[in-house]
């Protein structure tokens, strides 16, 4: 796509050649002549969650340059040299410039994926007046998918760009263009972009791993849990390809969150299914969690590479290279293993049975699944109250020394409460759920940071125990020692803050907020 903002773009729906459609509407003595035809390959990039698009940007590779274009105006915000045509890339790998900055703002975690590749055939024409003076340039664009197998059909456009000082002459000509309007309609850059995206292969499709279920409070809980599980399962499936292709770490992350969410809800709302069936399902989900733990760990440490490096004095920064290359190697191994597992008979069988389990809509036997038929609102109020009580009891019981196990356990309690609130959020008055979640945020952040740091310290400690002496081992040990020291002091600060933050949560205001929320539910 060309992007001169002063150009007028028209969408062509007929099959008539340009010299006829435009040619027959020219003023006396004017003519159009062809200058050249060229092909331009363009690759459109965006993240899986279309974060560039959501920020109103198009990311296009054209002529060995990466363009970032503002969709509304068609203005090229920046063009940076960009060699190759990778299937995906990270904003952080771009050279320090405006393009990098803009794309990092869209996403620093997700990769920009080749969304679609097109061949753009552009024939250029001149519009000449009676003196053979060029008054405008015309470009006729037809687009074909670069993939010959693709059946995508793209709309064709032509653009008219008046030369400076010739707008008046041209506007008369444009006014003379014939109806029907749909054959000659001025289209914006954004519109042209959208038609290409629509014609391209499906992608992301408004993907979001966030839960937005509209629940009926009177419907049996059994039905609503199955709705949740259908959603989490779809998220798992959507992310499988991205995991196998190792595009970015978010595919696995979203996949794991879905697994955890499914498992957690089944366990928290125990009694909605027959125990025999859930035991099997929970074991399967647990297995998926276990099988991805190490891969996720590798991802997390690789994402922390810059952060770790910056924590160290320059003299020790390169000493972490062996540490990271070992993690990279481990990641390759775990990725291979899990990718293989995703296509294995075992996994496919599990998913088939799992989906059959979710789809079974008969209410189970009341004796085996006592809450299955209960109204969702009632179950929700009970479950949330119980989970909240657990958080409060465990939090209050946490002693002055705030031990590691206490904080670990409390973190899990909070997460459970959070999953319940998210699941049932549509049952609450609008914004009430997000208000409660906000109330919980400081506490969750505190606990999350604490546990995160503890996990990192354990990991680094185990590395330290294994470092071979000699060949840079001393430097690496020093670097890891440095990291441990920093993490330790940071973590202890977090620990010191716990009681203060917990009392910020465990107060009258929170109690009232939850009461309002849950009383409303019970009376519904």
């Amino acid at each position: 796509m060309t992007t001169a903002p002063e150009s007028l773009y028209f969408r062509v729906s007929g099959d008539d050649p340009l010299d006829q459609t435009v040619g027959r509407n020219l003023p006396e003595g004017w003519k159009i002549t062809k200058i050249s035809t060229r092909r331009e390959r363009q690759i459109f990039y965006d993240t899986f969650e279309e974060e560039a698009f959501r920020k109103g940007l198009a990311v296009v590779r054209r002529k060995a340059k990466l363009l970032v274009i503002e969709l509304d105006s068609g203005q090229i915000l920046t063009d940076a040299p960009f060699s190759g045509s990778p299937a995906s890339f990270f904003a952080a790998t771009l050279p320090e410039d405006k393009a990098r900055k803009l794309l990092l703002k869209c996403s620093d975690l997700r990769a920009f994926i080749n969304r679609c590749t097109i061949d753009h055939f552009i024939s250029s024409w001149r519009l000449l007046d009676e003196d053979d003076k060029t008054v405008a340039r015309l470009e006729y664009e037809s687009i074909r998918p670069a993939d010959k197998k693709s059946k995508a059909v793209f709309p064709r456009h032509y653009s008219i760009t008046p030369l400076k000082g010739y707008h008046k002459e041209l506007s008369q000509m444009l006014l003379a263009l014939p109806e029907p309007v749909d054959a000659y309609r001025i289209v914006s850059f954004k519109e042209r972009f959208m038609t290409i995206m629509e014609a391209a292969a499906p992608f992301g499709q408004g993907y979001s791993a966030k839960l937005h279920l509209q629940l009926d409070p009177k419907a049996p809980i059994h039905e609503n849990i199955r709705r949740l599980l259908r959603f989490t399962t779809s998220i798992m499936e959507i992310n499988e390809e991205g995991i196998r292709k190792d595009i970015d770490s978010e595919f696995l992350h979203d996949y794991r969150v879905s697994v955890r969410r499914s498992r957690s809800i089944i366990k928290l709302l125990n009694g909605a299914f027959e125990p025999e069936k859930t035991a099997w399902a929970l074991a399967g989900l647990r297995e998926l969690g276990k099988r991805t733990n190490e891969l996720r760990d590798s991802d997390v440490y690789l994402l922390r590479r810059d952060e770790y490096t910056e924590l160290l004095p320059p003299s020790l920064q390169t000493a972490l290279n062996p540490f990271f290359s070992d993690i990279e190697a481990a990641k390759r191994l775990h990725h291979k293993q899990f990718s293989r597992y995703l296509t294995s008979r075992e996994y496919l069988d599990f998913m088939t049975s799992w989906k059959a389990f979710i789809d079974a809509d008969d209410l189970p036997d009341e004796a085996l699944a006592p809450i299955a038929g209960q109204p969702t609102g009632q179950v929700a109020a009970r479950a949330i109250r119980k989970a909240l009580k657990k958080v409060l009891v465990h939090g209050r019981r946490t002693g002055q020394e705030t031990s590691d196990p206490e904080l670990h356990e409390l973190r899990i309690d909070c997460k459970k409460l959070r999953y319940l609130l998210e699941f049932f959020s549509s049952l609450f008055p609008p914004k009430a759920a997000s208000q409660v979640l906000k109330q919980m945020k400081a506490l969750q952040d505190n606990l999350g940071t604490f546990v995160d740091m503890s996990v990192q310290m354990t990991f680094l400690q185990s590395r330290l125990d294994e470092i071979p002496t000699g060949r840079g081992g001393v430097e690496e040990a020093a670097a890891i020692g440095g990291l441990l020291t920093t993490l330790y002091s940071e973590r202890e600060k977090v620990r010191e803050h716990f009681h203060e933050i917990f009392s910020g949560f465990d107060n009258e205001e929170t109690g009232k907020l939850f009461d309002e929320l849950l009383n409303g539910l019970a009376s519904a």
Partner: protein
Amino acid sequence: MKTIALYSIKGGVGKTAAAVNLSFLAASPSTPSLICDLDPQGASSFYFRIKASKKYNSEKFLKGNQKIIRNIKATDFDHLDLLPSDMSYRNLDIELSEAKNPKKRLAKNLEGLEEEYKYLFFDCPPNLTLLSESVFRASDLILVPIIPTTLSIRTFNQLLDFFRQSGLDTSKIVGFFSMEEKRKTMHREIVDEFREDPVMLSQTIPYSSDVEKMGNFRAPLNAIHPKTPAAQAYSNLWDEVRKRVKGH
């Protein structure tokens, strides 16, 4: 922005041909250029096939700035625009004399072009008038085509004298030999005589039917036949001019 005036008291010395070809050579993505046709005969406008819009006239030119910018037209060549002249320009002198501060008028009117153009060329009418003086003050370099004849050299000296008398900066004036015919002894001798003179550029423009034919194909010679000897000469001349104007 550097301003270069193609000027000569005499007519028919290759002023417009030089203005058209040099401006074409000057225009590039990093140095967008404007040629400003000041001659009511409109020869450079003609070469670029551009007519002023019907409402444009000398009055608007003298109003300056926005009125000028609105009437600039793109040539068929990238990064080169033209401000066409109009027959009404024949009265520019009279109108200028009635204006306030006529000698500085032009420089003031062209403020605002600075943002858009790196080179501005004036194609001046052949005479020595108030308009010429206004051009002299507005220009960084006054480029004078001279046919290598005694009479032309005399006229050139008259110009230098005029500058001195009027307290103008003579260092702005640079001549170059135009329509040189090597077979003519007088041409050869005069070109030789000025070979070392810094007031004269070393590149000469040969007399050439290719240049005359520009009137037929109505485009810069360097755009249509860049390999011809005359086109090559313009190209070398531009290299010299560019270096000179940089010093100013």
